């Protein structure tokens, strides 16, 4: 594991990816995004296409510009784990929120009906 990574600073240089190719891809996707917005696609199709393009662009930046491809994989783990944790937290909070909202509404309804029948 460790010996696949250079021990001294001089050996840590990695082959440079074709940064300009990444740049042109990002530029093309950005233009495509703006074009797609002005087409008459359905909202669902539009949102899915735009989200996929955004994540591809973000991935390209992290993978090539931020060198995740060439760095020790612990950095990729650091990049991904917090997003998973945040997604779980959001999921739990949304579930709790919907749960409480529904039951609060039900309680309110019962209470209102009880008050009306009195």
């Amino acid at each position, binding site marked *: 594991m*460790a010996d696949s*990574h*250079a*021990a*001294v*600073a*001089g050996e*840590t*240089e990695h082959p*440079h990816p074709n*940064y*300009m190719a990444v*740049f042109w891809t*990002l*530029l093309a996707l*950005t*233009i495509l*995004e*703006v074009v*797609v*917005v002005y087409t008459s696609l359905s909202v669902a199709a*539009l*949102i899915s296409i*735009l*989200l996929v*393009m*955004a994540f591809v*662009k*973000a991935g390209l*930046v*992290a993978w090539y*510009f*931020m*060198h995740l491809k060439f*760095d*020790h994989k*612990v*950095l990729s783990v*650091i*990049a991904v*784990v*917090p*997003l998973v*944790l*945040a*997604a779980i*937290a*959001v999921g739990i909070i*949304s579930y709790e929120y919907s749960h409480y909202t529904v039951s609060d509404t039900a309680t309110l309804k019962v209470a209102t009906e009880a008050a009306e029948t009195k």
Partner: protein
Amino acid sequence: MSESVIAVGQDHFNDPNNYSDTITKVSNWKMFMWLFLAQDAMTFFTMFVAYLGLRISQSDTWPVPSNYLNIPKTAVMTFILICSSVTMVQALAAIQRGDQRKLRLWLSATVIGGLLFLFGQYLEYSELIVHEHLSMSRSLFDATFFILTSFHGLHVLSGVIYLASVLAKAGRYTAQNYTQVEIVGLYWHFVDLVWIILFTLVYLI
């Protein structure tokens, strides 16, 4: 005993990239920056989710963003930010070859890109506030727009100051000592990455 301790210490200071004394061989500086970016990503992530939650809860009254926001102009700002990311990777590549002159040149270009982005955001805000009368208290659409874009704008402003501070000390970096250039690059690419997501969620969708 004390001699070896001193020797280890000397190694530490003679190896400015600080690669040799960690288990993963990832420099402490780089690890620090990634951990910082990870917590910053969680902040942005939760803000985006809160934004989507508010937007979905009011989907019947939520305006179409392109009715208020100027998408072609913002696409130009996106273009500027992507360009400044490219100049940043060129700056790092230059100092890894030991080329300080090119490092200064590319870093300056990156700073100018950041300043242009901030100027674009200033123009956008003045247009929206003066002509479209958007304000924090008018609607959730306005409030979430200003909170998300200004939080990102503050990151760009910090990035410009951070880049300028690295540029000011460019003379101390060499082909063996470039970690500070690398980690300012990580921060700058992250700001670009967040904008890519923000542009889609706030402007396009």
